[in-house]
């Protein structure tokens, strides 16, 4: 279950500035932008996307190691 969100108050002039920035960007809303910037400042990067390897890919790895004479 996703954790609930909280409301944070910021000065209205700052909010207007954020709105202006967001208009020219790929962000959907000022909230998205602020969360993004805060995460960046906090060093809270999303963890690397970990792709699951297919059986074929794992077999390729094994084949490579075998060809090197390690297996």
């Amino acid at each position, binding site marked *: 279950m996703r954790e609930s969100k909280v409301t944070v108050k910021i000065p209205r002039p700052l909010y207007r500035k954020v709105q202006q920035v967001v208009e020219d960007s790929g962000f959907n809303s000022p909230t998205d932008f602020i969360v*993004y910037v805060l995460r*960046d400042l906090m*060093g809270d*990067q999303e*963890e*690397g996307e*970990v792709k699951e*390897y297919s059986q074929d890919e794992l077999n390729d790895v094994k084949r*490579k190691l075998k060809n*090197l004479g390690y297996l």
Partner: protein
Amino acid sequence: MTRRADARNETYPHKKMSVSSTANISPVHGGLDQPVNRLVEGVDAEWSKLAVIDVNEIDRTTLYRIADGTLSPLNGPMTESDYKNVLRKAAIERNGKWWAWGIPTILPVSNDEAEKCKIGDTLALAYEGQIFGTIKVRSVYEWDKANFIQSCYGTDRTDHPGAGLWLGDDRTMLVGGEISLAPFKDEREFAHRVLSPLETRKLIEEKGWEQSIGFQTRNPLHRAHEYALVYGAEVILRENGRKTGVILNPLVGQLKGDDVPAATRMKTYVTLVEDHFLGMGDKDEELWKEKGQNFDEAVALIGLDMRMYYGGPREAIMHAIYRQNCGFTHFIIGRKHADAPFADGTAIWGDFDAQEVFDKLEGELAIKTVNVGFAAFFEELGRVGLVKENKDKTSVNISGTKMREILGAGELPDERVMRPSTAKILGEYYQSKK
């Protein structure tokens, strides 16, 4: 010899990966369960519609090490907050914890490119006009090179190879964000020997290694150099008798112009390993026998496609992180590790700084370091040994300059210093340069 081993293991009880009954693989740095993987199936036609950042060969190498997980937990070049934390305390923060990181992992861009980078936008990454990936921009910031050099190298002086790397780069802005890259086609003749963390971890699992020790090198190996790997492996084997993997793990990325090229070095390493010259006459045969293990079967040659920073202690931290992400449990730190002096030949760092930095880390690091000192062939021993243990004996030495003269003349140096198999290959290389 192994330091902080127990303390570090205590921080990773849930991450200790025992994937088979015996194999022991180091946890991924940054608290991840698996190495980062930012590779996608191939170049997306949509990428050609994006604004482009042109990268150089070194940038591309670094980006691919992020993409294959060698630089886990990064999923792209560093944002400003990570960058500043690394300069300030040699660590990055993830999930409320600090993790060791020696040198910022950066993507420099030109001012024109920086202007195109708006936070939240995705740009294409290109090398020599060929788009190979994308970056979703999270941070655009100025690159204060003087501060960068001072923090990473511990000196304001810039007359050393490390500073030269950065000052020779015209770009003054940095971009951080998340990357996605198409697979890299490595066409170098030794490409099959360059393994990703996924592959090295599989190797450890298949081999059932209960511990594995990596040795970093950017040079052809003298017999005394190779002894560092032999000695380090014997230290941990003697301690616990566990099934041990011994990995000769040279850097094959971008080096200084006067370093011997990777293709030549790899040829010398291949003969050392495949013809079982590595450690011959120098290893402790009794020890390996007593522990029921075969040194030659324990050795693997694995190339690591990463550039050098010539950054001494800070770079030693990076070298350890790469190896932890490869799954190795131990990593050898020599005296003057990753060292490159000032232009006048004086040292930037103390001989042991790169070993001692691991006692002062402000972030976690799971891999254990094994310190090894200088070695030489000693006449009275009839083999290579550590200098500090044989001060009263007669060592056999050849200076670097003399060695290049001998090899350049097509002669073989004293085989107590360099194995003939290595010398023959290097001789051909030096003669071809004439």
